[in-house]
């Protein structure tokens, strides 16, 4: 296990007073807390910072840590001296390094039950579940696998166990939604119940469709003459192509509603909106250019009429 220099992590001197440690922690918490941070790897950085603070804000823990710090350096491998035992108790889940010094929070620290029988509820597991838009409409089951922590009867952590489940994606599931699967988390100990599994739904961005609530949006490129004359265009949906009627004189950015071709919602189906985008050819040949010229001379149209000041 690697030695952690808690002073370095908080960016304070080893003789810093409690006030300086608090200030340093609060600054770093605002920077790395996963709630507010947009930094890469914020969660792990915050864990280190919180762990360092937990060790240094407590006078007794700090004294113990200072004692051990004489034997270790940041990045070096570290084993506590034989017979080392901490007098402090602690909460929260920290690194093996922290637990080797101050003891493990689990199982002794977390006994919420007052019964004589030893029982601890298993850990809740949270995992991201990326799903494709197509999958939200399908009845097929999705296979997910995740790592479950395991502990022996003395509370020592063993290697994680991989667990695989087949789940049906509930209809109408939305981006960011959390699905709770009761009892599918970490195993309970003694009489304790299993923890739960929380699936954090992430809709994978689609190359064609954007999501707006339960509606979908597709951008439909059309030629300028199609916008003027109107046309029928074949447009993809999540459930096959449809023929979309584009009325004459359609502006760029116009939204056309295709009923019930969106995502499933709890109350029915969302709609698909086709947003028109006028595109022009990359190159225009001489003949076409002449025709456009004639057109421009014959058409009375000022696209910037709204700019005219009164």
């Amino acid at each position: 296990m690697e030695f952690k220099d808690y002073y370095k992590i908080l960016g304070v001197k080893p003789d810093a007073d409690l006030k300086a440690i608090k200030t340093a922690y609060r600054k770093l918490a605002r920077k790395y807390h996963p709630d507010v941070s947009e930094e890469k790897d914020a969660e792990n950085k915050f864990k280190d910072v919180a762990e360092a603070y937990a060790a240094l804000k407590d006078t007794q823990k700090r004294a113990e840590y200072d004692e051990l710090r004489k034997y270790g350096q940041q990045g070096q491998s570290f084993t506590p001296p034989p017979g080392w035992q901490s007098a402090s108790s602690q909460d929260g889940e920290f690194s093996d390094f922290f637990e080797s010094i101050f003891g493990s929070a689990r199982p002794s620290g977390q006994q919420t039950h007052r019964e004589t029988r030893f029982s601890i509820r298993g850990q809740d597991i949270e995992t991201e579940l990326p799903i494709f838009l197509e999958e939200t409409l399908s009845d097929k089951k999705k296979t997910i696998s995740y790592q479950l922590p395991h502990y022996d009867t003395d509370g020592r952590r063993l290697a994680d166990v991989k667990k695989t489940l087949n789940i049906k994606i509930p209809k109408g599931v939305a981006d960011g939604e959390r699905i709770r699967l009761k009892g599918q988390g970490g195993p309970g100990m003694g009489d304790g119940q299993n923890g739960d599994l929380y699936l954090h739904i992430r809709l994978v961005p689609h190359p064609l469709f954007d999501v707006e609530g339960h509606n979908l949006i597709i951008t439909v490129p059309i030629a300028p003459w199609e916008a003027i004359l109107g046309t029928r265009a074949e447009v993809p949906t999540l459930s096959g192509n449809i023929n979309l009627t584009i009325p004459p004189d359609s502006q760029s950015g116009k939204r056309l509603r295709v009923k019930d071709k969106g995502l499933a919602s709890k109350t029915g189906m969302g709609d698909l909106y086709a947003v028109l985008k006028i595109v022009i050819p990359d190159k225009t040949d001489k003949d076409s250019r002449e025709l456009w010229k004639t057109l421009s001379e014959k058409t009375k149209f000022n696209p910037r009429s709204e700019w005219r000041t009164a």
Partner: protein
Amino acid sequence: MMKTSLTVELTLKEVCEISDVPTEVMITIIEEGIIEPKGASPDEWSFDTYMLSIAKRAFRVHRDFEIEWTGIPLYLDMIGQLEKLRTENKSLKQRLNRFLLE
């Protein structure tokens, strides 16, 4: 067989166990009005999973940022708004990009 339980009712004991929030802290969270379980007395209190996640978050924020309980509802509101805006911004950017050229 898998079952998803989207609406579950939990007791005070269950909600504390699942959230890892100590009972006395949970009671403070309720007294401060951060969550409002149904039922008149602690024995009758019933919680849903939304309250569970709010309580968990309130506890974390109180610990991690050392914010007083009275400031927590404001924090939760702001962070909720921030998250909503971030999601909205992301999706609007994605849509905008379909109209812009490189």
